[in-house]
């Protein structure tokens, strides 16, 4: 619509003429941007994001120093710090993400969203990016760890940057999975439980104990395949400072897969 012209188009043909492919593309981009801004605001205008970030940082610090024995390793690196990222993401990110769609369904605002002239995928991406940004901000606020390790020694900062980037990608994977569960379950508690359960499977498959168990039960081939679908497996190389293309592809593919499922599950609610 030409909003600056107060009169509505005279004929349906004129209205139709406004609806070019480029205007639809602009509408999709506008929807991603608006939904992203609205969700980010919802995180930061309530205690949710602040509580998540504070508790995440406290937990990460406690695990790194108390269980990871950061100072006892006598090495200037962040290995004990990055080691706990997947396990903390497994619990914290579903908690942040579970409301994304379940709250829309509960409050009835899903009807508002689905009657906007925007493809569902653009809504899913907007919501995903907002939750991913919260995770990114939490990750950025761990910078004192980086400062500390540089103060204590001479770490490989390239490796640390790489590990941070891959940790951010991994967080995207957990968030995409949790957002899809929120869309599927339509209930925050159920979405959280489902996301943690499925996330645990995709995390634990990379543990040596699980891999050896799978090898005994199903053979080495199955165990190796299972390992290749684990968050841990693809994060290990980054922690060593090795940039693996397959790890990037894995996390990107994982995010896209769950965003597609998220879109389909929301679309299926239109038929019910």
């Amino acid at each position: 619509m030409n909003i600056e012209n107060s009169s509505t188009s005279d004929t349906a043909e004129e209205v139709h003429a406004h609806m070019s492919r480029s205007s639809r593309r602009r509408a999709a981009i506008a929807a991603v941007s608006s939904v992203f801004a609205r969700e980010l605001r919802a995180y930061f205008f309530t205690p949710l994001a602040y509580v998540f970030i504070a508790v995440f940082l406290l937990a990460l610090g406690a695990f790194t120093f108390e269980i990871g024995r950061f100072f006892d390793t006598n090495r200037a690196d962040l290995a004990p710090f990055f080691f706990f990222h997947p396990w903390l993401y497994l619990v914290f990110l579903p908690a942040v993400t579970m409301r994304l769609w379940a709250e829309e369904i509960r409050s009835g605002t899903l009807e508002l969203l689905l009657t906007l002239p925007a493809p569902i995928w653009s809504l899913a991406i907007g919501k995903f990016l907002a939750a991913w940004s919260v995770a990114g901000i939490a990750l950025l606020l761990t910078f004192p760890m980086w400062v500390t390790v540089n103060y204590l020694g001479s770490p490989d900062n390239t490796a640390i940057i790489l590990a941070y980037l891959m940790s951010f990608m991994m967080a995207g994977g957990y968030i995409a999975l949790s957002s899809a569960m929120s869309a599927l379950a339509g209930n925050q508690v159920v979405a959280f439980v489902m996301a943690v359960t499925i996330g645990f499977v995709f995390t634990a498959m990379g543990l040596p104990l699980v891999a050896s168990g799978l090898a005994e039960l199903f053979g080495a081939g199955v165990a190796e395949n299972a390992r290749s679908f684990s968050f841990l497996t693809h994060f290990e190389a980054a922690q060593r400072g090795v940039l693996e293309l397959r790890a990037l592809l894995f996390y990107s593919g994982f995010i896209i897969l769950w965003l597609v499922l998220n879109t389909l599950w929301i679309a299926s609610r239109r038929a019910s």
Partner: protein
Amino acid sequence: MSLLKIDRLAKAYGVGASKKHAVRGISFTVQKGEVVAFLGPNGAGKSTTMRMVSGYLEPDSGDAFIAGASIRQERENAQIALGYLAEGAPLYGDLTARGFLTFLAGTHGLSASQTRWALDRVIADARIETVIDRSIDTLSKGYKRRVGLAGAIIHDPPVLVLDEPTDGLDPNQKRAVRSLIDRMSKEKAILISTHQLDEVQAMCSRAVVIDGGKIVADDTPAGLVDNSVSHNLEDAFSLLTHEEGEQA
């Protein structure tokens, strides 16, 4: 050409023995300049029809065309031309009325200057100046409804589908909404669901009555009154829906 064309829309809920046909292949059109009342008792299929027209629900069969665009084949194109006020007006309670309307303007791709212009227009039209910077959670039901209505017209669409737009409003607010609908009716095709039969005679040029998912009357309010025994719209409505309902 009609701006809104509903063509054999049908929807059923449930499966097997529990399957309930909410809407049974209804068809009608709304021309530019028309305000059509969509009447029926609770459970007649009004909201289901409106949800299908808005693109929120997928029809089992049939289609709705908004400004010529099929809601099934060109959903986003059709929705660009539609302003929809859902039953109960679901809103984001954590936002202010201004924040909510700005969000909707953004999702319609309006620029910052267009948004400012559109906000000024809808704030005045819906008469929400005094609450525009208040959190939606703190507003009365009537104001929430008016914020929802402002959201439906933020992009100045040629077609409006309003599910009980005066529900929860006091008499003054109702008069203001009727006046707004009357002003907009010259340039738009408007479909309104309501239980307020006095509103139908006051602002609608036609009334489509639905019961048991089927259209039981499609006439002017005066025509409906003329066909009733007591020349009263309430009796006409009761006769059409009660008896048809019992048959269904």
